[in-house]
């Protein structure tokens, strides 16, 4: 067991996996010698050599296409797209090739790869370093979509993603790489070391994809969330004195419906929280599922807390971000009558 921040935990997962499996190759922009702009791949080139951890040209389409070829050969690409906002030149390769390969070849060719990419705002990154595009991937049949919220889960989920026989888009909430975030941007940042989930077991362990985690048990309402918003939500329910059951989904596809249903049936109320824009966000899917499956248990309409349907605005970051005020209002609304 060691105390780690999320970057260190992800780095450790790389090392554990790469030591055990020589077929894993890591590449991405600045991901080789330098170890990535967020340092997640630091030291990999030194330990595993230049042909297993290397710098890629600035070509996201090329990075993902090359990974397709490598996976076709039999390797397991574990690749980095520097920011989720940069993934779009590779979108055709992901949507048309990576996602559909197993299906279109009747299982002859498969794509066991992990595409890691930092996402989300709260770092004054403007519109090209802040987006949360998870729903562009959850909508694509054939892809799995995973989002950790703690160092402990980041390592276990990444190791599970690497072991998975299908392609996984692994979104890393960059705002909480170095410490959890309660949504109060004007307060000092707390390091991970003060959070129990910074205890990261040594060696290999996995958190199965499709298992949500109840991070706070409660009776009053069920709060469904993931990534950075897990911590913002936890702080909000404490601040507002709501006995919410907070569920960190951890993986959007596959989704742990059982945990969600069980909780909503118990509480009778549900709030869905994500940073991504509202329209066609993953929250819409969650709301639909909850009403389809738990309608007769619901005591109030299911609400959503989300980012606005605008590009991520640089100076207006904290007016855009779904912070404590938006949380408070939604909690009150779901709890009314």
């Amino acid at each position, binding site marked *: 067991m060691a105390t780690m921040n999320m970057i260190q935990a992800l780095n450790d997962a790389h090392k554990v996996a790469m030591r055990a499996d020589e077929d894993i190759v890591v590449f991405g922009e*600045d991901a080789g010698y330098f170890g990535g702009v967020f340092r997640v791949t630091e030291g990999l080139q030194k330990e595993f050599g230049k042909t297993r951890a*290397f710098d890629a040209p*600035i070509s996201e389409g090329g990075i993902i296409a090359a990974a397709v070829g490598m996976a076709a050969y039999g390797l397991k690409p574990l690749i980095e797209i520097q920011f989720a906002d940069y993934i779009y030149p590779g979108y055709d390769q992901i949507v048309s090739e990576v996602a559909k390969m197993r299906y279109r070849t009747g299982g002859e060719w498969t794509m066991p790869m992990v595409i890691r990419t930092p996402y989300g705002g709260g770092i004054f990154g*403007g*519109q090209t370093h802040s987006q949360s595009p998870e729903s562009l991937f959850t909508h694509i049949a054939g892809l799995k979509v995973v989002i950790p919220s703690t160092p402990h889960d980041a390592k276990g989920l990444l190791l599970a993603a690497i072991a998975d026989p299908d392609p996984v888009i692994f979104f890393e909430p960059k705002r909480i790489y170095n410490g959890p975030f309660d949504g109060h941007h004007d307060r000092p940042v707390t390091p991970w070391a003060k959070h129990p989930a910074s205890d990261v077991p040594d060696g290999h362990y996995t958190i199965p994809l499709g298992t949500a985690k109840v991070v706070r048990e409660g009776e009053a309402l069920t709060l469904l969330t993931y990534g950075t918003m897990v911590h913002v939500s936890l702080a909000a329910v404490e601040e507002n004195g709501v006995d919410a059951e907070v569920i960190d989904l951890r993986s959007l596809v596959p989704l742990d419906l059982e945990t969600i249903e069980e909780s909503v049936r118990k509480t009778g109320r549900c709030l869905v929280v994500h940073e991504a824009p509202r329209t066609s966000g993953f929250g819409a899917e969650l709301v639909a599922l909850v009403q389809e499956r738990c309608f007769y248990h619901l005591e109030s309409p299911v609400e959503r807390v989300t980012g606005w349907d605008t590009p991520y605005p*640089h100076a207006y970051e904290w007016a855009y971000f779904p912070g404590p005020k*938006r949380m408070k209002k939604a909690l009150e609304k779901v709890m009314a009558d």
Partner: protein
Amino acid sequence: MSDKDPEATRANRPVLELHVPEPRYRPGDTPDFSNIVIPAAGSASRPDPSVTAAQTHPLATDLVRVLGDDDQAHGPWDPKIDPDTLRKMLKDMVTVRVFDDRMYRAQRQGKTSFYMKCTGEEAVAIAAAAALDRDDMHFPSYRQQGLLIARGYPLTTMMCQIYSNAGDPLKGRQLPIMYSDKAHGFFSISGNLGTQFPQAVGWAMAAAIKGDHRIAMGWIGDGATAEGDFHSAMTFAAVYNVPVILAVVNNQWAISSFSGIAGAERATFAQRAVGYGIASLRVDGNDALAVYGAIKWASERARANNGPTMIEFFTYRAEGHSTSDDPTGYRPASEAKAWPLGDPVERLKAHLIALGEWDDERHSALAAQCDVEVRAAQKEAEKLGILPQQGKDNIESMFEDVYAEVPWHLAEQRAAALAEAKDK
């Protein structure tokens, strides 16, 4: 298909090896660039701008240089610029450098979130602005702030953009330095690399469709030439014989990746034009006269319907990629000093002195004047606020310009955001 057992035929073959490019020097090394071939100033031939693309291709591996070690202009590429224009270019370059230093410091002081300098690369944008017409259109990358400065865009407005304040024409929406100004022929900068390169081609196609006289210039870095958009730009430019100048600013580094990761170990960037049948020049990017001469040549070619030109400007990124980058983690700190093509500001200054049109005293006075102007602009800009004070007023502006008209769902969200802002 051979009937032979593949295993049997392989016995004498070497095992395959993956080559991963590595820069010559890493932190701790002493850089020595004596391997870089630097032809004498004035040695490159200058074909007529109407020649076929193929006739330019020997220049794709050459290096067009005008300013010699004697600080004089040499050879057929000397654009023979009058001293007043040279002094204007020098002033613009000094202004860019002072501006960069002030804004870098402003970021470090917490006045904004981000900044990018172009130190060591000032000549390319300043000479481009001088060589092209005022109404030609630029599709820049994020290191051509010199275009705006040379075209007289107010320094204060640039700073207001950097501070996202009340004077920011982009309404606080864009990351610092992602300027945009139609009136100054400066297309909106994108944080997504390379997108502007084929867009420049499209603008120039439109000018040709409409029988216009204005041409376009697209800019890209060495690293971003790896993007698919680079190929799209080159293909469209070649197919439609587009009146566009496509500039690759090869400053050797793409954050931590040296130019070899973009293919520079195999061919010059200028050589990429060969396969597309596009005229190509490789130019000393730290030589303002050579840059000017090359762009003038390409503009004459484009204006006479003789087609596009790709130009590689060979230069060096003397500082970090941005305020978020520390280059000492991947390259020797002394590389910029060891760079064999010198400093573009110093070279132009020395040339003016050699012409008898400048002296150290006047240069000191110029530097002081630029400093005063930049500081004054900064003071003006800061009166309108710095980033940490922004994002609280005029919240409704966040919902404007998403569409021409605000749709019902954004109107609803705008009302919610305004209520949220009032809520204590």
